[in-house]
């Protein structure tokens, strides 16, 4: 019996005679798979590769070698003794040698001017003048009136040092930002206990006490101001009971701000905030005083939290009525304390103790010293940031670098170049360029697109891709190999048949 039964009239067909089993068609089908795969490879490559544009690495490294230098010209006017300028020069050189770190970036030149006649013909733009005159030392805009004599010269050199490179407490000064938010808060510990302060003339106080400072510093920072009054702001601890009133120990001060329950500033922007708080103790806890390390009440009523802000404690006098505005005398005291704190937080240097000033807000000496320091900081920060971008991109292989990152890096480098170019001409311009460079470099660093792909170990990749691709690829490869071997066999046979 035959294995298969066919209807009458039909015959078995040879499979190799089927149209899709002809050698040509079959090979075409297999080849078409391969053509598609090969054509798809560039697409796959394109879509899975990370865009890593090259960064101007050599420019960044070259820029990092640059150091900002400010020329400082000091003119000595109406000096009797001709040897004094060179003596002062020597004294200053000596001080620069002793603390090169403090004088970093300054090229100090001392020149002599006689009867209005400049010894040097060239007149630099911003130069400082020292006028020899008896009496108490007086600091004006960019001028110092000082009894210049052989004996006072070392003291003068010290005074110049503290005017040009004032010592600064880096721990206290807030980090540079082109914009700051100042948040003023009047806190009643517990208005329900009676005799609270219900309001204050904040806008008047700001325009009287702070506006001159703020406009003086407008070259450096842009300020936004917000204020609020709160009527219930409990402390997180109980102050120490004293014979008369209550006291805050030094440790209490460190935990004074009850951030869990006081809401001190709005969160409308990402600018750094400096807080200024007037704290009115509850009527049952007055007077509240700050204790010194020995537990004795100190006369001070204000303290400062480094980089955060300042706090003033105000104890209303007992005769004050309930729920009144903050009296104007108190407002003045509070705001002069705030002004002090603001200047301290922004790093504005003070004048040497023994000097008086006739300037209303800031002298040119102070502002220049601050500008120089901030510009140096910014330049350093921008260079560091650029270098770390280059380093990280180099180190983390799957970190993308897009067009905007490269653009920001280039712009930051350009700003740095402009900054160096303007260092000898204009301090304001130098600071502006340095701030631009820092902002751009930071923006490049914080670019949201720079997020590296997650790390996957090689074995994860194998485990994920092998089941996916091997099942498709192995039959294709096997078919291709079989087809090639068949074709070669056919060719060999054809060659033998010819012989």
């Amino acid at each position, binding site marked *: 019996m035959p294995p298969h039964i066919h209807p009458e009239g039909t015959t078995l067909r040879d499979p190799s005679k089927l149209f899709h089993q002809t050698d040509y068609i079959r090979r075409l089908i297999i080849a078409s798979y391969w053509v598609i795969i090969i054509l798809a490879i560039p697409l796959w490559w394109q879509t899975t590769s990370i865009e890593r544009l090259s960064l101007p690495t050599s420019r960044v490294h070259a820029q990092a070698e640059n150091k900002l230098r400010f020329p400082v010209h000091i003119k000595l006017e109406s000096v009797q003794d001709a040897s004094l300028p060179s003596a002062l020069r020597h004294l200053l050189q000596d001080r620069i040698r002793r603390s090169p770190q403090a004088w970093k970036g300054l090229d100090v030149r001392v020149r002599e001017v006689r009867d209005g006649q400049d010894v040097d013909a060239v007149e630099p733009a911003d130069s400082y003048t020292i006028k020899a005159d008896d009496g108490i030392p007086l600091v004006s805009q960019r001028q110092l009136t000082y009894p210049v004599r052989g004996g006072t010269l070392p003291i003068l050199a010290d005074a110049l040092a503290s005017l040009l490179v004032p010592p600064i407490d880096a721990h206290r000064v807030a980090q540079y930002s082109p914009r700051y938010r100042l948040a003023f808060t009047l806190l009643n510990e517990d208005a329900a206990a009676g005799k609270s302060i219900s309001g204050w003339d904040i806008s008047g106080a700001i325009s009287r006490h702070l506006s001159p400072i703020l406009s003086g510093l407008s070259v450096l920072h842009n300020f936004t101001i917000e204020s609020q009054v709160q009527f219930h702001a409990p402390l997180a601890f109980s102050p120490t009971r004293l014979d008369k009133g209550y006291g805050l120990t030094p440790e209490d*001060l460190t935990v004074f701000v009850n951030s*869990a329950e006081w809401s001190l500033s709005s969160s409308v922007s990402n600018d750094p905030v400096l807080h200024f708080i007037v704290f009115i103790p509850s009527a049952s806890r007055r007077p509240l005083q700050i204790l010194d390390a020995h537990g004795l009440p100190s006369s001070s009523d204000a303290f400062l939290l480094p980089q955060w802000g300042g706090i003033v404690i105000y104890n209303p006098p007992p005769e004050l009525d309930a729920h009144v505005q903050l009296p104007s005398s108190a407002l003045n005291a509070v705001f002069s304390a705030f002004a002090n704190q603001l200047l301290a937080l922004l790093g504005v240097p003070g004048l040497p103790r023994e000097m008086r000033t006739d300037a209303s807000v800031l002298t040119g000496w102070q502002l220049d010293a601050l500008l120089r320091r901030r510009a140096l900081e910014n330049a350093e920060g921008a260079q560091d940031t650029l270098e770390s971008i280059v380093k990280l991109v180099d180190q983390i292989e799957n970190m993308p670098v897009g067009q905007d990152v490269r653009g920001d890096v280039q712009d930051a480098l350009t700003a740095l170049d402009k900054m160096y170019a303007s260092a000898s001409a204009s301090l304001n311009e130098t600071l502006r360029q340095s701030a631009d460079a820092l902002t751009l470099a930071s923006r490049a660093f914080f670019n949201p697109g720079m997020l590296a792909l997650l790390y996957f170990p*090689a074995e994860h990749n194998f485990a994920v891709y092998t089941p996916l691709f091997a099942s498709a690829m192995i039959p294709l490869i096997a078919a291709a190999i079989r087809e090639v071997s068949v074709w070669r066999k056919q060719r060999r046979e054809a060659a033998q048949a010819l012989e």
Partner: protein
Amino acid sequence: MLLSIPHLILLLFSWSWGIHAASPSHEEIVGDFFNKNGHAGSTSNHTNNWAVLVCASRYWFNYRHMANALGMYRTVKRLGIPDSNIILMLADDAACNARNKFPGSVYANPGRGLDLYGDNIEVDYRGYEVTVENFIRVLTGRMEPSVPRSKRLLTDARSNVFVYMTGHGGNEFLKFQDNEEISAFDIADAFEQMWQKRRYNEIFFMIDTCQANTMYSKFYSPNILATGSSKMDQNSYSYENDNDIGVAVIDRYTHYVLEYMERINKTSHETMRDLFDSYDRDKIGSDPGVRADLFPRPLDEVRITDFFGGVAQVEVQPPCVAEDVSLPGDFSSEGDVSLSNDSSSEDQQSAQSPVHAGGKAAGAWGQSTDRGSDGWRGTRAWGGILLLAALVGWAGWGK
């Protein structure tokens, strides 16, 4: 059948490679940092504290992870870190879960004594926002400009950052909400990026998950102190069930850490050494680890409040009786009474003293240098290709 056998072999191979693949890729960088920054003897001079608390799990049966994170949140807040400085990432589906018999509450102890959810919780990343990407973005600061302040880690070079993570993890990874995972390399790279941009002064990293100690083994940036709940191939266990809630309410390690923290207040002088000494292997049920080789200060001089507290220092200012706008003559040191928590003489001592803890720990957790790792990786890749080729050949000519 023909196809499934090679698969099986391949998978077996890749699995066995995985076992041997504990090859750190950053040894040289680590070495660099040891030479440059290691043991510089700096003291903590931070001015602000930040906390990033991550609960990487979701769903009701991971109630305890939510409780871990909320317990830590309560503690850092109690010790003085303001809400604006706490980034809390929480799936947050426990308190209002339909299965929660006590709606709106999360308890961390079987007696249900303390409601951790309370009335003053600020969850910054909630539900599906808790992703690996968002976590890395928080750390590195790489955010879209539109992201609000409350979701950002606005730290600077004077910030001490406390990073706490909890969830389900394994060897060098932590799972995020059952659909992705973060590896130890990713966190190490993120910390390095923070260091490069001076986004921290010091970091204290704490993690409670299975095989937690592997998560900090890849760190290579300086000034990081790390601790975890269990060593490699070891599970971390839950502490206790509450019969009314019906699930475990907290993990053991976090429970004992929090229990210890309850004794701390804002002005406490206890040190990290005290915290680590309080670890009790028998109670926790696993081996908690500490890695201090990247951390320059001796642990017995590092106060717990350096990371969990608020402000370290204040300056009392001299009385000011100015009536008019006048420039204060002097801000310099004389008038100010510095009331630092760490007295400066103490600082100097620690600056000069040799680093005991760091030195000792370096032996335990230090550079497991595997110089040939790159070569080994290459060999592995070629091996895979050869294996594939062999299989293809076998399939092609086998008939």
